């Protein structure tokens, strides 16, 4: 059985890259986060990635750190993450992005079960190495959800093959060596990494880190199967004078990114 996310990639295969939008659960608060997700989807986001806000997010830059801090102050935890997932998954294929400790704390089996029960397609685990994945692999397989590993430009060939072999749904290619955030240009290393990944697996490859506008999205969509945007959406909300203005900005950004992935020359 395939997940909604896998079916989405299948349906766009050969035509265009999909657009994945990220938001931490509970940001800026639980109710408003639903409206932001709706605005993303209305603007053309194809899949939603719900972040599990975590106290020690070492892969995240200042924008997402601030959003996660705000969500944590609002008391966002596993319950809010799964509720948000349920809402997002009712609109488009959706997944969770979380550091490992919240999963371990919740219980690996419980987490996979509740992910599936709330319609989630999979989980992105940025700090889970394949060496520590034993229980995660068997449990996610049993529950029919995707395991999405993040690989980096520094990942060497032999290791890359080992990691992509364990992944499902898609492989998350980090465009550069660094943390999440806005960049003036997408690293040239990203295309090279995607082509190296493709030599090891036939599952889709999505690129994240530093993609923030339609031009960059088009650039990445020319060689990747998915484009992941997070910080740019968060910033649109953070910089808006009101929630309503933020929702307009989010929708416009989504439209521009969605146009970008459709304009890519493949």
């Amino acid at each position, binding site marked *: 059985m395939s997940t909604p996310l896998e079916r989405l990639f299948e349906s766009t295969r050969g035509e265009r890259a999909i657009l994945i939008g990220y938001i931490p659960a509970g940001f800026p608060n639980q109710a408003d986060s639903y409206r932001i997700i709706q605005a993303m989807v209305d603007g053309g986001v194809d899949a939603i990635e719900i972040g599990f806000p975590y106290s020690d997010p*070492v892969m995240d830059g200042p924008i997402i750190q601030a959003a996660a*801090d705000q969500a944590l102050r609002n008391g966002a935890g596993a319950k809010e993450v799964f509720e948000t997932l349920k809402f997002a998954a009712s609109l488009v294929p959706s997944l969770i992005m979380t550091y490992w400790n919240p999963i371990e*704390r919740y219980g690996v089996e419980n987490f996979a079960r509740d992910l599936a029960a709330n319609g989630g397609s999979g989980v992105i685990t940025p*700090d889970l*190495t394949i060496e*520590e994945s034993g229980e995660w692999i068997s449990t996610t397989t049993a529950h029919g959800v995707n395991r999405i590993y993040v690989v980096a430009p*520094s*990942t060497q060939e032999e290791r890359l093959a080992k990691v992509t072999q364990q992944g499902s749904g898609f492989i998350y290619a980090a465009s550069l060596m660094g943390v999440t955030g806005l960049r003036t240009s997408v690293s040239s290393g990203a295309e090279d990494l995607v082509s190296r990944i493709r030599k090891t697996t036939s599952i889709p490859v999505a690129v994240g880190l530093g993609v923030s506008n339609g031009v960059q999205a088009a650039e990445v969509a020319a060689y990747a199967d998915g484009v992941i945007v997070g910080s740019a959406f968060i910033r649109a909300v953070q910089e808006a004078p009101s929630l309503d203005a933020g929702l307009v900005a989010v929708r416009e950004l989504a439209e521009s990114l969605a146009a970008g992935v459709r304009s890519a020359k493949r």
Partner: protein
Amino acid sequence: MSATQLSDQLGHFGPFGGRFVPEALIGALDELAAAHQTALVDPLFIKELSDLHRTYSGRPSIITEAKRFSEHAGGARIFLKREDLNHTGSHKINNVLGQALLTKRMGKKRIIAETGAGQHGVASATAAALMGLECVVYMGEEDTKRQALNVVRMKLLGAEVIPVTQGSRTLKDAINEAMRDWVTNVETTHYLLGTVAGPHPFPVMVRDFHKIIGEESREQMLALNGKLPDAVLACVGGGSNAIGIFHAFIPDEGVRLIGLEAGGRGVETGFHAATITGGSRGVLHGTRSYVLQDKNGQTVESHSISAGLDYPGVGPEHAYLHDIGRAEYRAITDAEAMEAFSLLCKTEGIIPAIESAHALAGAIKVGKELGTDATLLINLSGRGDKDVHTAAEYFGMPL
């Protein structure tokens, strides 16, 4: 696995340890693990490090019998391993010299470090100055205020100190920020982690650089008394000085190993840093160990009068030694530590670091339990010059 080789190739100590890090760091961790393994058996490296110990840090550190102090500890004989007499004032120099040498061997020119109280930052800045490396130290903004003197020391030594304004603005956030720097600059930069936590190979490697403390003391105690001590005591934050002195004694089953954690205002109050005593299994900063965390797996802020023990995690080897029953861990409150601090000052003429005072407070308790026939070895891991402000405030002395 022998008793002294508790970990596997991936850095697991039973269910603890391992690597929970972004894939971007795996290459650098593999490179570091390989450099460490090669260096361990390279006579040139061994000689270079032992020369530095002898001619720069002041090793071997001496043992002092604390006769007047022991009168307050049930009359047990108490011996202090004087790591406070090392250059830069604590055991931290052992690890930084080893890692700085490895940095040069790996062809890297820049080191980054985290620091809480500033001791590891000062030691890192010292090693960087000695070996001509660029040094950046991340320090929680709160700690830069609490330990302003150490900030100046690091700057005098040529390091750049970056105050960390994220999260709780303490040691754990300084580690997060150092990890972010490392992910970004990993090709040119070595992360000189200051304790036996973090992803493999750090817990094993940092232990290897500190195990000289236990190796020296074991011989010194045999020479002094013709027998091993009944118990070895050390304070535990991340746990580097404790593993350093414990390690050589692990096969000696008759020797009790006792780690003293920071109990803050009391473990029952929730305001403490006693990770093994009052925490639960979890993953923090790249390793699985005991962690102070809430029901959602969010790290809970730790509390201790001692900045060097104020950390919500602990090294995975300690978690394992605890679970297999080879070492015991107890909590010492701020008040107990400060009483022992004051007592050592007045009975022995030694101002200990407040961190080490937790071990001294443990010695008072254990000494009373074991009685006059007992022999205790305490790791006096650091000197207390850095703590005079905190102590003056605590004891109500005008400055």
